[in-house]
């Protein structure tokens, strides 16, 4: 098997290109001087690494109050948006999978279009809706917006899972005397659960990462972590704390993924999806 030297070199360079900023996120979290964002003092001497930002995050320093508040708000909104969009998304995927009429064609278009819509258009159109209905922007409007753009991704993930679903299982359950509710909760839902979890994880990451849509509908004073960070100026004194917090989040996600891989390995190999 012949491998092209050139393509491997490009791949290595691209990986470096993708990882340098991540590496710097980690490194910047140890910068002592939050104003100059430099490891060197004014005399040009190396001033060493510091763990003080981590200490501030864990002990709850007042300087970081606004940052931490936005962080917890982001978590709350992402959690709630995930729950709601999973509930709505599951029913939508079931409907799209089961029926194939004109209603579902329209339904599919309605679910699909937000996927190709740039964030900023979803943001501005929601803002227009809230302006037109003179709704005060805040926690509720952010939640609505997040559910709106997460639902489509959840539906698509669950639909992919449903394609491998053997519909005869439902018929078998009916034949054995189970009612529609029982069948749903004891046959279909357990099989769909990995798809719902995958969709939920996607929704969570999208929600916690969103800045554009949120900055349209957050109103004055309500900031999620991304909008707070993007509103920080270059000369904010607490910039290294942002990088330290991001490093913690990165470690947490890595641990979570590692754990899920470990659990998956522990389980007996199930028939893998062919898609």
């Amino acid at each position, binding site marked *: 098997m012949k491998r092209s030297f050139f*393509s491997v070199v490009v791949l290595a360079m691209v990986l470096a290109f993708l990882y340098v900023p991540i590496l710097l996120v980690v490194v910047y979290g140890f910068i002592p001087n939050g104003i100059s964002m430099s490891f060197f003092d004014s005399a040009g001497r190396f001033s060493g690494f510091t763990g003080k930002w981590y200490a501030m995050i864990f002990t709850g320093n007042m300087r970081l109050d606004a940052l931490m508040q936005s962080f917890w708000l982001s978590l709350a909104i992402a959690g709630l948006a995930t729950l709601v969009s999973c*509930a709505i998304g599951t029913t939508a995927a079931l409907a799209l999978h089961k029926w194939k009429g004109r209603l579902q064609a329209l339904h599919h278009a309605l679910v699909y279009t937000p996927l190709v819509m740039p964030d*900023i258009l979803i943001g501005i*159109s929601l803002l227009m809706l809230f302006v037109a209905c003179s709704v005060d922007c805040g926690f509720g409007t952010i939640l609505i917006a997040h559910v*709106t753009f997460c639902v489509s991704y959840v539906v698509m993930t669950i639909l992919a899972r449903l394609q491998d679903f053997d519909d005869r299982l439902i018929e078998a359950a009916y034949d054995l005397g189970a009612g529609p509710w029982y069948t749903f909760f004891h046959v279909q839902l357990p099989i769909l659960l990995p798809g719902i979890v995958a969709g939920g994880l996607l929704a969570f990451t999208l929600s916690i990462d969103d800045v554009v849509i949120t900055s349209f509908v957050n109103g004055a004073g309500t900031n999620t972590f991304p909008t707070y960070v993007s509103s920080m100026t*270059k000369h904010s004194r607490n910039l290294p704390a942002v990088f330290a917090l991001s490093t913690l989040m990165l470690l947490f996600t890595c641990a979570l993924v590692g754990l899920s891989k470990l659990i998956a390995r522990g389980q007996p190999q199930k028939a893998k999806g062919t898609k």
Partner: protein
Amino acid sequence: MSGAASSRKTEWLVTLPSFAWLLVFFAVPALIVLAFTFHGHTANGGVGDWSLSTWRELVDPDYPTIVWKTIRVSFEVTAWCILLALPCAYAIARLPKRWRALVAGAIMLPFWTSFVVRVFAWKTMLHPTGWLQTCYHAYLHFKCWLLALLPGVHAPAAAPGAGNDCLIGMAGCAIDAAKTTILDSEIAVVLVSVYSFLPFAIMPIYTAAEKFDFSLLEAARDLGAKNFYAFRNIFIPGIRQGIVSAVLMVFIPAIGSYVIPQMLGGTECVLIGNKIFMRAMQNRNIPHASALATLMAVSVFVPLGIAMWWRKRQAARDRRRLEVRTAQLMAAGGVS
């Protein structure tokens, strides 16, 4: 009969939550935006009466420039992403099987850090006193020096007023170079956009490349084709579905880009996204923001429509080819 009616009722009940949600929070707002474009704006930031004044005002020299710039930047970003993604996808697809998943995962891993934080890391890196800026200056000075060496060629930036003397040209060029920062320029926006969207380009091309039959390339080489010829004339057509997906995956977010030009583009690189935000949130000119949003939607849906049409045509052609080949085989079947 009642069974069909109850099934119809169940269908409506199951469809209702998502249908109603997306209708109210996605379709209706989009129509409101469209409706606002046919209104004038009032001085106090409200929406005026029905009129075509907003569309007439879009001819304002500011807007076409911005739309054009957005499309140009998006094209540049897409071109770079595809150019880098092709060899990457090829390299990953040719790795041993257990390595592939690992490297593909490594490509997606940067997404586990907040997007804004990554852009902020770039902003810190590109800072005028940062190391990347130093490298960039060294490169610009080197270019000036090179250009000054060539007789009769002057650095374009130094052309007017700098005279014909090579040395003066070089000095002027060097001064320009010293003033050029990466931050707050189009270069920064393109660079960081490529950084952010590249994984979206690699993934679909890689998925297509994984299904590609690489023995075709070996066959081409056996028949005397050069590496590059085989890559261009056999590999690229073989994965064109993936390329089209990759183009859409990059071009659409690039058109809708807001955060990157906002944080790194300064005043030099203002794109439609920033203008929409400015008009909606700062100038309170809702009709103008709506009209710009409509323009953005058009620039997204036109390429999308073309891609869908192309895909449908491609599928129809493949089907026809299959039918012809089946017919040929069946005809030949009698012989062999």
